[in-house]
């Protein structure tokens, strides 16, 4: 699976041209799907090639606030993390809060195991995302959330190990957005842990990747079943 746009050669002029055809209302409806109408701007914003205020101004000139609000919120997440990092730089690699998973930080492993590093986990869709990350340096945001939740909650590994690994590969790796998003998934910067199941992956990814249910048993089950399995102390 490759991203629709090769992020590694996406230039400022191409991005601005792409933005001319970008529809924030369609983004709001489809952004969670791997083949959704997304902006692909993250690497350019991270590197200051295009600024989020500039994107806001361009969208504002063409669309109503109601049509654009969801997209602006997603841009604002970046500001929120950045604002927090300015005030609490020490939290970039430290837990902002305790885990709300029924476990202590010391219950989580320090390092990523070999099967994750080699994209040979027992779960097919996870391996697809891992391969995409390694081969392209880019992942759809929903795939990042799946990977982060898989690493922290299904495999009980510290978010820091995953965050460091993402920063190694991601072309758009922004320390504040990346590390605090990992903490959001882990629940050390959120009120509850984020997790998912196979049904959710099928809903949002099946138009883009071929999913084999027998090869994804590790993530199969209802939310209640998986929650009881992942967080037995809660």
């Amino acid at each position, binding site marked *: 699976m490759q991203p629709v746009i090769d992020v*590694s*050669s996406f*230039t*400022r002029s191409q991005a601005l041209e792409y933005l001319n055809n970008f529809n924030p209302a369609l983004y709001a409806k489809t952004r969670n799907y791997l083949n959704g109408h997304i902006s692909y701007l993250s*690497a350019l*914003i*991270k*590197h*200051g*090639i295009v*600024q*989020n*205020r500039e994107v*806001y101004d361009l969208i*504002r000139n063409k669309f109503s*606030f109601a049509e654009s609000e969801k997209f*602006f*919120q997603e*841009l*604002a*997440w*970046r*500001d*929120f993390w*950045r*604002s*927090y*990092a*300015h*005030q609490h*730089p020490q939290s*970039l*690699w430290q837990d902002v809060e305790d885990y709300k998973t029924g476990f202590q930080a010391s219950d989580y492993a320090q390092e990523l195991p070999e099967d994750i590093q080699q994209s040979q986990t027992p779960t097919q869709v996870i391996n697809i995302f891992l391969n995409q990350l390694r081969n392209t*340096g880019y992942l759809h945001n929903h795939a990042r959330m799946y990977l982060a939740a898989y690493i922290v909650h299904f495999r009980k590994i510290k978010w820091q190990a995953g965050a*460091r690994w993402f*920063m*190694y*590969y*991601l*072309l758009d*790796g*922004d*320390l*504040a957005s990346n590390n605090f998003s990992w903490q959001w998934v882990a629940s050390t910067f959120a*009120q509850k842990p984020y997790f998912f199941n196979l049904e959710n992956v099928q809903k949002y990814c099946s138009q883009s990747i071929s999913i084999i249910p027998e090869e994804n048993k590790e993530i199969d089950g209802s939310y209640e079943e998986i929650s009881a399995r992942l967080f037995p102390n809660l």
Partner: protein
Amino acid sequence: MRLVLLYDEFMCPPENLEGKSIYIVDPNLQQDYEVSPKVLEYRHFLAKEVGAEIHQGDTFQILETIHKINPISEIITKSTFRTEYKQLFEKLQQTYQLELLPDYFLSTENPILPAKRFFQYWNKILKQLKY
């Protein structure tokens, strides 16, 4: 000479900014995590896109060498939350005239706000963004 010091958050100088752009790959500023060859290659690509001079090594030493050959009148770069860069900028300020452009935010007034959850932050900046 006016120097525009690029780094991974500031790979494109503002259009009206005059000065020579320089991008330094400095391992001292990359201590908490490593980046892949593909990421480094991408940043080279971006630096070349804006015609920057590319160097590798200790930023302060490289600037010192440049300064000896062609005196630097001013260095312009962008502020950040990252500690290693803040320390570098403090050090540069002792020797050079340094202009730090503000960090990039969606909201233009007081973007750094106390908020522990996203919607606390969003509700504070919403008034500026709504139209």
